[in-house]
């Protein structure tokens, strides 16, 4: 009987010491890189905008989205999202400038760092010419 009590106390102590020593997990961080377009680029009418970029996380990431907004008309002209859990992402998408009028544009990349709404984002502004 005493042996059982001693083993139970030892196991309990081991658990307390183990959990006490465990470090709190670091929050995941992400490095967002927009390779194309670069700030101030001008995309002529009828030509394609290359949207190239990468996301590299310090741990598992929870998806990302890419949106392209016409700031002149305040319209969303492109959006895409990926819900896969990975430590890195790369995208290579294209959008053809058919806006009709010269417009200020913004490309926004948003990465989900967890499922509690923590995100990291990066934007770049450029011009879609007529």
């Amino acid at each position: 009987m005493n042996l059982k009590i001693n083993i139970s106390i030892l196991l309990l102590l081991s658990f307390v010491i183990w959990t006490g020593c465990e470090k709190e997990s670091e929050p995941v961080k992400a490095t967002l890189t927009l390779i194309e377009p670069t700030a101030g680029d001008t995309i002529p009418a009828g030509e394609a905008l290359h949207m190239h970029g990468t996301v590299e996380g310090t741990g598992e990431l929870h998806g990302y989205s890419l949106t392209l907004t016409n700031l002149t008309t305040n319209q969303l002209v492109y959006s895409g999202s990926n819900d896969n859990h990975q430590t890195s992402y790369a995208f290579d998408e294209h959008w053809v400038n058919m806006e009709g009028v010269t417009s200020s544009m913004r490309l926004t990349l948003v990465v989900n760092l967890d499922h509690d709404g923590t995100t990291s984002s990066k934007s770049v502004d450029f011009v879609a010419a007529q």
Partner: protein
Amino acid sequence: MSLVGCVFLTYSIWSCDICGGVSGNASIGLLASTQFHMIGMKSNFNSYRSYLERIVHSRERLFQQELTGRWQLAPRIQLIGSIPYQIGMQKRDLGTDIISGLGDPRLVVNYILLHQKDDDMSTRNFLSLGGGIKTPLGKKAPETSMIRNLYPGTGAWNISGLLVFTKRISHNISLQQEGICTFKTSDKSGYKYGNTYSYSASLVWNKKVGIGRIICGPGLMLEYFDASTNHGLPLEGYNNQGYLGEGQLNIHYLSYQWLWGMNVKQPIIQNFNEGSMKQGPFVSISLSYLITKTNKNELKN
């Protein structure tokens, strides 16, 4: 005519150009040293992965179904043609594109320069020179397309030169070597895929099995792809330039009037677009009907 020491030929004159000029296999098949006419079907599967900063951003899969034929115009002249139909899929993080349609038809004329036989009528040395064209009749990409490589046609002519030499090295083993140069023209928009050059060497072994004959050819293949250009100027960024070294295995089984074939290629070394694209394994299966007046005699020996 004996099939021992027979000549095993597989030409690669691809029409769609996911690697700057590969894809779309035309084969004159087996038995160049015989008088067979052939008509058949061939299925090809190939895959690629593209990288951005060493992270995969797209996967491409190509499936191609070809109608193939070979006609022996004269004892020394063979005509080989194929019409492909292709389904290409590119899957990216943020979207998927599927392009399907007829590819560019191909035609090859093969002229036998040398065909020496041993006393048992087996082929001892075989040398042939071929010329091929690929016509821009397949479905091609619009000028503004960003997925040009996924289309079954290139919109341009290809002209190929093919040299094949086979030497019998033992009773039922031959060494076959082939070199192919393919020169490409520009499409209407001025875009031109780079010329391609390939060399392959295979050991061809054959043995009578059951009612037919099995023919195996393990070997190596090296390919080089020149850079693509636009109006004569090198493309900005990735330009499809690169090289590929593959191990390959051909297996054929020939019965009285049917020829079954399988070709598998596995890249060993490769570098396309500065390492931003990698080709996966290639698998092809084919079935051809042989048209000949003396087919039963061909299988003796």
